């Protein structure tokens, strides 16, 4: 089906812009249309539990903005049904594909045999149109996870849903009630068109760029010299400090459990109850900053894995991450669950309430942040020495260091600069960070010093011991890209340019990621846990998706105990498509 380009017909002064951000009440349309499965609103909150599941991938029609659009869904729901499994159970999932194109389902964060992982081309051949595939595996973990398509842009079109695995031994942090809160981003624009637009003009959806008016304001406040100086590096490097999200609320409607902000998903509680909220970010491109004004959030699990509880006001959730919090609403009133996009271009919103139909005040969006010099250059102590970041920009020194000396790489805050792969000096990489910062106690752009206690990776302390108790080998990879050309890669090589990363079965490696871009990337390794480490190498928490902020270095251990071919990629959907993907082979 050809989806018309909403962008070309929408005038900025028309009310539809507002409607796009807020959405309209409703969401799923109840009309059956030739060939499309019937979508019902109640399918949105459907729960399937047990050991055997029959799922069907198909087209459905949704209406989030007043315009009907084609979506791709599991069992006709966006999101698909909540799958509840039990730790230790063998599950069988028969997935039928009624689409006219190949499809797949990947069980994100679940440890399983490679042929059950659902990545077409690496795990299996995908599910042919009209065909089916039966996934069988034993679930040896518990927690909050999710599933999504790993075929083309089907995830953006609605093919995702939550998974909850109940622990055999009971919850470490019991609650009286729980809700899954799945956040996602919807666009009326055909994702193919959206991706093509990013290739042509990577800032097409950025409506927060610095303007002449901003410059004039800065000159009057700081003087001409200061205003020019603060822009000098950005302009020299041809980087945009407002580049926080490639796709913004300009074309996205942000959803909470498939409901627009206007239709207000509501989760019920009784006063005094401990309510566990299982947050899942099922968005294709959007980082959400989540808070519930009036409630402290007790974070008890991250990426499905229990962590020592920590109380926060707010947390940032990257695409594919999950976070479990327990709240204890003490008043008999409604509370707003507010999840603003990192670029502050919109929000998802829902309500916790003692009764249906209640609403609480919805906070205003925070001011739109701009990236800082630290986001560009990493370790700020190096900034004083004459802007080293710029030297690495273009042309620059062509030397690539052969050694892998950890001490010389600034891993432990050494003064050595990191080495870059030769391919990073090619035309498809627009910047390199020579002195990345290693601290994890940074909540990220837009959350620093906002007066609220915000979760950081430094707060995560696993409740259990690490799988990889030692490290035998260190692998360093840089997250690279070119914003203007809209090309993304590891070590300057797109997926198609790169050889697989090979791990010996049974070896335990440390992967050190250095983010040489100005964007934040959630990096997901399939098949094996990413055991996040503090800068000094202490195990922090077990994760399936690790966020690396601009100019940051993050390390984690991987126990290569899962034989097979695995995907390793940025979980921003269009970054993955544009090359930020590697195959990992464990043999």
């Amino acid at each position, binding site marked *: 089906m050809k989806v018309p380009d909403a962008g*070309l017909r929408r005038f900025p002064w028309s009310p539809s812009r507002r409607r796009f951000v807020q959405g309209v009440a409703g969401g799923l349309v109840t009309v059956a249309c030739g060939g499309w499965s019937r979508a019902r609103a109640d399918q949105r909150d459907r729960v399937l539990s047990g050991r055997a599941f029959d799922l069907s991938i198909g087209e459905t029609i949704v209406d989030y903005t007043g315009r009907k659009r084609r979506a791709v869904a599991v069992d006709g729901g966006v999101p698909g049904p909540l799958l509840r499994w039990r730790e230790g159970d063998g599950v069988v999932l028969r997935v039928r594909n009624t689409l006219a194109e190949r499809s797949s389902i990947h069980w994100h964060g679940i440890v399983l045999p*490679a*042929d059950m992982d659902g990545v077409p081309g690496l795990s299996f051949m995908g599910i042919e149109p009209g065909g089916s595939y039966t996934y069988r595996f034993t679930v040896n973990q518990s927690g909050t996870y999710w599933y999504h398509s790993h075929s083309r842009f089907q995830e953006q079109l609605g093919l995702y849903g939550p998974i909850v695995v109940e622990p055999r031994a009971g919850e470490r942090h019991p609650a009286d009630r729980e809700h899954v809160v799945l956040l996602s981003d919807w666009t009326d624009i055909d994702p193919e068109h959206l991706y093509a637009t990013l290739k042509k003009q990577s800032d097409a959806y950025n409506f927060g760029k610095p303007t002449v008016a901003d410059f004039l304001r800065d000159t009057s406040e700081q003087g001409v010299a200061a205003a020019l100086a603060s822009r000098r590096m950005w302009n020299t490097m041809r980087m945009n400090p407002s580049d926080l999200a490639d796709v913004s609320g300009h074309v996205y409607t942000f959803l909470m459990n498939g409901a627009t902000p206007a239709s207000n998903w509501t989760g019920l509680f009784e006063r005094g109850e401990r309510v566990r909220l299982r947050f899942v970010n099922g968005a294709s491109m959007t980082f959400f900053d989540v808070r519930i004004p009036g409630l402290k959030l007790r974070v008890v699990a991250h990426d499905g894995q229990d962590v020592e509880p920590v109380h926060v006001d707010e947390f940032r959730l990257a695409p594919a991450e999950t976070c479990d919090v327990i709240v204890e609403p003490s008043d008999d009133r409604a509370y707003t669950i507010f999840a603003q996009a990192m670029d502050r271009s919109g929000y998802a919103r829902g309500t916790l309430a003692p009764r249906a139909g209640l609403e609480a005040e919805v906070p205003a969006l925070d001011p739109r942040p701009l990236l800082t010099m630290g986001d560009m250059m990493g370790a700020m102590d190096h900034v004083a020495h004459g802007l080293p970041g710029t030297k690495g920009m*273009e042309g620059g020194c062509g030397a690539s260091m052969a050694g892998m000396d950890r001490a010389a790489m600034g891993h432990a805050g050494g003064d050595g600069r990191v080495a870059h792969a030769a391919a990073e000096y090619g035309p498809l990489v627009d910047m390199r960070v020579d002195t990345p910062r290693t601290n994890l106690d940074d909540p990220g752009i837009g959350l620093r010093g906002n007066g609220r206690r915000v979760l950081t990776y430094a707060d995560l302390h696993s409740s259990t011991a690490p799988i990889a108790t030692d490290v035998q080998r260190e692998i360093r990879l840089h997250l690279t890209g070119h914003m203007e*050309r809209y090309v993304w890669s590891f070590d300057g090589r797109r997926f198609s340019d790169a050889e697989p990363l090979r791990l010996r079965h049974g070896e335990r490696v440390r992967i050190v990621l250095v983010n040489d871009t100005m964007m934040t990337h959630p990096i997901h390794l399939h098949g094996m846990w990413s055991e996040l480490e503090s800068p000094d190498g202490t195990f922090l928490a077990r994760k399936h998706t690790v966020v690396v902020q601009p100019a940051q270095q993050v390390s984690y251990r991987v126990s290569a105990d899962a034989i097979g071919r695995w995907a390793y990629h940025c979980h921003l959907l269009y970054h993955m498509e544009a090359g930020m993907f590697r195959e990992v082979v464990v043999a």
Partner: protein
Amino acid sequence: MKAMPLALATAALLAPAATAGAQVVAAEHASHAAHEAGADHGAHHAHAAHAGTPVPQEQDAARAHAHGAAMPAHDADAHESSAPARGAVDTRPPPGHVAPPPPAVPMHDMAPAEMVEVMGMDDRARWSRVVLDRLERVDTGSGNALAWSLRADYGGDVDRVQLRSEGERSEGRVQHGDVELLWSHAVAPFWNSAIGVRRDVGSGVDRDWVAFGVHGLAPYWFEVSATAYVGGDGRTALRVEAEYEALLTQRWVLQPRLEVDAYGKDDPAARTGSGLADAAVGLRLRYEVTRGFAPYAGVEWARRFGRSATYARAHGDEPDDVRWVVGVRLAF
């Protein structure tokens, strides 16, 4: 499971050294370890029931504190053995992780084309872009003309075919214009080389050229293109273009641009003289209704120099001209 007795033993060992809070945690962890090892469910329920009562804030604080206290002990352990082999001894229960069995059906290797097809992922996909930067009505004083400037390209991230054309049409015919077909190759992060051909059309003699140049994004976001041309009879030419986009707001864009043409020798038939031949400086204010549709108005000052100006006068053209333009910028 093997790690469980170890964890218990460690917990017991560390307990005297740690704070009372740490003991609580260690004991709790040991209890969890027991669960994961499949200990009796009676104990589990007892634990759950205990934890299931409303959790007072103090207990949470104690937990957090205990954790903080436990960590240094754990770190001290790690320091005894040489880094990076840390965490060999951990007070926490084992992760309960079970490595998955190998795939029953390993995936075969595929040719890149099949891989792209099966994965639905193609970072080498070719894509196209058409930008009609100027499509405008020019008030020439004596009447109206239609001017255009087009850039279209197709290809991958590195190699692209580029079609460029610009010119002006009035009185029912193209007065002057050119079409270029180039191979554009990414040579540096913000720069591409271009090699191709150009054909001039319009009044005077049509000339054909071989073109080579660079185009890209200069510091401070100037879009720059510099192309040298070699034609027949030892003719040479140079064209430099630069554009800037100043955002007055997110949708009002002020675009100054400069274009300069120079030639190596006189070509009376084509009405171009050697040296700097002409320059155009334009200022256009557009409103981006969408990224692909932006009406604009502006002014352009065009001037011919030297012998080019003489040739122009001879043909009744004004060599120095300020003209108002109204048009639309299209991109798709």
